[in-house]
């Protein structure tokens, strides 16, 4: 193998790609060829680094130097300084919000420092499109161990002892599921990898699929051996083209290397996988709906039992696990159940990936040990709330999860304590909200998502989410009554109680948790006709604060309806008859001179 003196690892996760990381890669390659360094320096596109806020990202190996927010125009200078003259470029390094000095090395950055990478161990260091790089980092070693040294029972016992629980949300013990699948009568048996990640603001499955597709394949082959399955399906939503592309390549390469197919590693064990593209229904993440979708039917859940482990795909025993669960399996087999179960809490073992989004400084993907407190994630790794605003709540588990308020910031993150607080682990989305977020508006947003994504089978879910949305919408428009809150709560409880599948049973969580922790905000909308956060359009109007306005005209230019009048260096005025309350002016103003005021208050004046 050819030796290089430096590797340039360009992040090619979806976030960085959309900021132009492929252009950065091209520019780097061009510059390196220009300087005839192509035999010394290699440019590699890796999977997502997780620090999506700072894309495009470049890591220089072996120095461990971390460059961020690169532009094509920076590249010649960077190559000249760092790679020719050996002087790392300070101005392209990461500077923490409150500090002045840049941090050169990746491992010293707060965002990366507290993470514990198991599932994402290969992120940002291997090229996901090359199987050799995966193998170089102990890839497929666990598979060899499982196929040659372990019996199916031993594999299941190892997974059970590790205490691995399903990472898709509900947290069902994986070992138990596998044991049921193994014991089930019927042949052939199937495996499914659930990559139908549909929560708004969640992208951990996508990232694993993009950064390390072989880890998933390896986990599935080990699972196949444990269960005696001969065919696996990887269900990926069609909205993830890069994940689909990389998974296709990974499967092709694994087949070429004899890691999939008839005689895996010469042991005589046969297993193959197929990629199924999902058509983008959130409910297809529910396992029975996913099975229906793979079978080519409408993605509608059915009641369990019979559980898929006994009667799944085409009526045959089927084990479904989430992307993250499958990718964890090789680590457990290779390093042992003891090592894995030493991480985490009593009931929740190992690590969990969270996608950190919303009003937070360090947007991105983090893998942390279970049991870490919310405070450590939001203020430690996440770097706190931008703009000096106050932390209000975090929505965990996507639309099915709940809003956890500031007073529960020290809550340890594991399956049980989150459920107790009214939220759920879900797939691991974390949406951080600050004091400029209206909780009623958030409830409305999620209900609108759910009424659209409900499969439409159960009355409780289909009509329940629709009616809840109607009531919450009425409240945000200032037309709510006190009685509405009782009805809302009653519908929410019934929806949770009577619905068939996980979607309906958790659909009311956003409403129930916001009602539990932020009832005063609902009451402010209903009784005072006031939106405390200044978000709900019908209850506010935008006005220019004369003392702060410099007459710079940026609000005027931003206004889509030409509702703002004023000449340069003069205080501007908003014509309320033309204003559509889009808030573009507030965003455009650099002097905080546009304020959202209470609609009614102004009318009285």
């Amino acid at each position: 193998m050819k030796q290089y003196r430096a590797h340039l690892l360009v992040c090619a996760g979806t976030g960085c790609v959309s900021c132009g990381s492929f252009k950065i890669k091209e520019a780097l390659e061009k510059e390196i060829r220009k300087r005839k360094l192509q035999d010394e320096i290699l440019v590699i596109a890796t999977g997502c680094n997780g620090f999506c806020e700072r894309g495009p990202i470049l890591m220089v190996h072996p120095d461990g130097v971390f460059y961020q927010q690169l532009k094509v125009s920076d590249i010649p200078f960077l190559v000249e300084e760092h790679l020719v003259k050996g002087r790392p470029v300070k101005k392209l390094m990461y500077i923490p919000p409150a500090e002045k000095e840049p941090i050169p090395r990746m491992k010293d950055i707060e965002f990366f420092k507290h993470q514990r990478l198991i599932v994402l161990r290969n992120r940002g260091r291997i090229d996901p499109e090359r199987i050799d790089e995966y193998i170089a980092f102990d890839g497929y070693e666990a598979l060899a161990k499982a196929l040659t040294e372990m019996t199916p029972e031993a594999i299941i016992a190892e997974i059970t002892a590790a205490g691995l629980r399903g990472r898709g949300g509900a947290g069902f013990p994986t070992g138990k599921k596998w044991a049921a699948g193994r014991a089930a009568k019927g042949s052939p048996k199937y495996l499914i990898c659930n990559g139908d990640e549909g929560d708004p603001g969640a992208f951990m499955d996508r990232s694993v699929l993009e950064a390390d597709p072989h880890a998933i394949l390896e986990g599935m082959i080990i699972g196949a051996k444990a269960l005696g399955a001969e065919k696996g399906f990887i269900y990926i939503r069609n909205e993830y083209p890069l994940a689909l592309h990389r998974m296709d390549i990974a499967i092709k390469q694994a087949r070429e290397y004899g890691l999939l197919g008839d005689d895996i590693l010469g042991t005589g064990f046969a297993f193959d996988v197929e990629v199924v593209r999902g058509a983008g229904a959130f409910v297809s993440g529910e396992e029975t709906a996913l099975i229906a979708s793979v079978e080519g039917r409408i993605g509608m859940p059915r009641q369990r039992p019979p559980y898929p482990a006994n009667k799944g795909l085409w009526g045959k025993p089927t084990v479904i696990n989430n992307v993250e669960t499958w990718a964890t399996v090789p680590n457990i087999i290779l390093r042992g159940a003891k090592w894995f179960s030493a991480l985490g809490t009593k009931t929740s073992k190992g690590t969990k990936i969270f996608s950190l989004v919303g009003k937070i400084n360090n947007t991105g993907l983090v893998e942390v040990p279970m049991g870490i407190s919310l405070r450590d994630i939001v203020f430690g790794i996440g770097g706190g709330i931008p703009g000096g605003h106050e932390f209000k709540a975090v929505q965990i588990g996507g639309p099915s999860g709940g809003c956890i308020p500031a007073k529960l910031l020290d809550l340890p993150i594991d399956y049980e304590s989150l459920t107790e607080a009214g939220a759920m682990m879900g797939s691991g989305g974390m949406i951080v909200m600050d004091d400029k977020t209206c909780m009623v508006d958030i409830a409305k947003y999620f209900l609108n998502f759910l009424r659209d994504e409900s499969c439409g089978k159960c009355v409780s879910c289909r009509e329940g989410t629709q009616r809840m949305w109607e009531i919450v919408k009425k409240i945000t428009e200032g037309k709510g009554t006190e009685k509405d809150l009782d009805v809302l709560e009653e519908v929410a409880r019934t929806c949770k109680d009577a619905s068939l599948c996980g979607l309906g049973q958790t659909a009311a969580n956003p409403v129930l948790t916001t009602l539990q922790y932020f009832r005063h905000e609902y009451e402010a909308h209903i009784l005072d006709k006031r939106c405390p956060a200044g978000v709900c359009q019908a209850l506010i109007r935008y006005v220019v604060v004369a003392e702060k306005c410099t007459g710079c005209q940026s609000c005027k230019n931003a206004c889509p309806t030409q509702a703002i009048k004023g000449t340069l260096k003069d205080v501007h005025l908003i014509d309320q008859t033309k204003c559509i309350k889009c808030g573009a002016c507030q965003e455009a103003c650099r002097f905080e001179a546009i304020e959202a005021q209470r609609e009614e208050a102004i009318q009285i004046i």
Partner: protein
Amino acid sequence: MITFRMNGLEVSAEEGWTILDAAKFYGLEIPTLCYYEGLTPYGGCRLCVVEIGEGTRAKLVSSCTYPVEEGLVVRTDTKRVIAARKMMIELMVSVAPGSKVLQDLASQFGVTQVRFEPRHEECILCGRCVRICAEQMDARAIGFQQRGYKTKISTPFDIRSETCRLCGACMYVCPACQLRCQGPQAETTLCNGCLTMDPTCLDYYDDLQCWMYDAGRCGTCVREKT
């Protein structure tokens, strides 16, 4: 045979029966709507929910789809069950107040208010028509479209289906569009006409429970309340 407990009684059922099958066998009434004998259970209307399990693990499941299990504990008429059924009826009546089946259910369960804006649609998406078309008529001419609040039942591309033989089975089994209730009030969207009826048998068998399981439920011996 599988033995389990239902409403405190030890009962036994054949393997493969659902809770609803067993309840019917023992004469316990569970209301149903999307269930139709001869069609695959669907579990969509959530009227037939019963409570299973005990303590904190107790949950509601649709009895038409839940197979009986050894040692199961089932309660068919708990407060939680009745509350869920009443809410389902309220939600469905608010969509299709013109359905006599729904209006009857509302009166039967004492649903006397509908707190949602009525939509005056015909369909409550119970899926009976879809199933009879596919399973009994072997036509598969109609199916569900869209999802969530946009769900509807129609032919592919909403055009006249070539596989449809106009047999009318879909209309025959429909609980909403065939029998019409003439009595819904514009304001409440409820009829509740039956609430003013009294069962006559109580005059004769004051100390006995009506043999129709619940006094007056059958509606055959009613007279106007005085």
